[in-house]
């Protein structure tokens, strides 16, 4: 048996691994892939709730003034088990978020595809596990269960 090692591909792989299956297609139904956003600004509120954490941030509008965007994160529970608390993200913390806007464009909401500090560090470290596929290399690998 040829042993297959996971192929390491930054970007797509890590982000595929990062997706939860609350149901497959959940994110695609919620956010619009034709509306990417890049948001920078301070945190004004954090809802440490399930099924998704929501980070509210204040963003400068192109025409002046500010507006508040809600950024969707994951379940907070794993982070709580690593010692994160409601005080871990103080109001005023500057963050940079790239993602896509909600499909209902009246909503100033986006998925937290990648949330970092201004210097690029990820917001948290996370656990030591991963949801990486076993092997992305074999095109003949049959999908079980069908």
């Amino acid at each position, binding site marked *: 048996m*040829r*042993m*297959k*090692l*996971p192929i*390491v591909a*930054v970007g*797509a792989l*890590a*982000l*595929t691994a*990062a*997706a*939860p*299956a*609350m*149901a*497959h*297609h959940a994110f*695609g*139904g*919620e*956010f*619009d*892939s*034709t509306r*990417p*956003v890049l948001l920078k600004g301070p945190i004004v509120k954090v809802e440490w709730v*399930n*099924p998704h*954490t929501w980070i509210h941030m204040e963003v400068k509008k192109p025409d002046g003034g500010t507006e508040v965007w809600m950024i*969707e*994160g*994951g379940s*907070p529970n*794993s*982070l709580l*088990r690593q010692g994160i608390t409601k005080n871990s993200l103080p109001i005023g913390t500057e963050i*940079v978020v*790239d*993602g896509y806007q909600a*499909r*209902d*464009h009246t909503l100033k*909401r986006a*998925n937290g595809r*990648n*949330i*970092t500090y201004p210097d*690029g560090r*990820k917001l948290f470290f996370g656990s*030591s*596990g*991963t*949801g*990486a596929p076993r*092997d992305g290399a074999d095109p003949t690998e049959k*999908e*079980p269960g*069908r």
Partner: protein
Amino acid sequence: MRRRLLLVTILVGGLALAALSPAPIAGQGQAYSPPRLADGQPDLQGTYDLATLTPLERPNGMNAVLSREEVAKLEGAVAAVVALGARPSSGERAAPPKGGDGSRGAAGNVGGYNSFWLDPGSTFTMVNGEARTSIVVDPSDGRLPPLTPAARQRLGALLARPSAENDPGLDPTPGAYDDPERRPLGERCLLGFGSAAGPPALPNYFYNNLRKIVQTPDRIVILNEMVHDVRVIRMNAQHLPSHIRKWAGDSVGRWEGDTLVVDTTNFNADQIRYVVAVAPGRTLMMVESIGAEEQDRLSGPGKDLHVIERFTRVGEKALLYRFTIEDPGTWERPWTGEFTWPATDQPIYEYACHEANYALENILRGARQRDAEATKR
């Protein structure tokens, strides 16, 4: 007197084996004798983390058991991918590409969110000293048995959904976003996604795989983190009448020697269980409801589901969990899986879901936006 002698034997034996290896001691040639509660039954209590790298079904080309070297290589490679995901990005990065970032599966072509939210497990499940490549053990190829023709027809719409390989991010099934009742149970916050409440209890490969068991002589409960579901197992009792249906079925239990056997029936008739690939080699059991019209036409596939679970303490910090699924409306024959539940000293946190389910609102509003745009065109 005999009990005290037994206790001494356990202590001595335990100490001797503990000196050899801290791992669960079942399968090392000495019968493990569990600690017991006042009623004489083994104490199954504890909090357990079911996260594991072992998938439900065995990936192509793999043996049933990994060698120690293979385990080290694979677990190490997985850890390396995690480390990559933790690396900083550029603070000066641009917005992601218009048209999507190509991410598959539930990431929905919009990239989901950072991997630091996840806790999917970092080790393969060890059963009897073997690192397993699948939870399914019967059929012996580690794959589910074939679907019945009726199930294939019934699940046709679901199975025809794009696979993780070519997922455009949207479910193209007609009507998939018409009503909240059309959305999967996890999205509606009725049950955890995957088979979180069970039965059977299965890892979801994402997060919050914790379970807690509290045990008394006539009631044993399993607290599932998602969605704060409590399964109450009534010991030595009769099932509810068949017209009473429950989201997690009705569970009755009994002891067979030192194994707790739990029998569950009376599932909601409109639930179906099927298995979907969420990544190459990674399958997840989905529990979803089907619409009322389909339920009438197909006379409720969930109604015949029968799950038998077996819980055995195999070490100070581990239970062996084994389950058999009998669902003659869905699979051509029963199938069985097993994996170890390792104890954790982490607590289960509240998973209130419905109380802040913005996502469901976002999804339905988004669908109405798309409808409006389609009408305009």
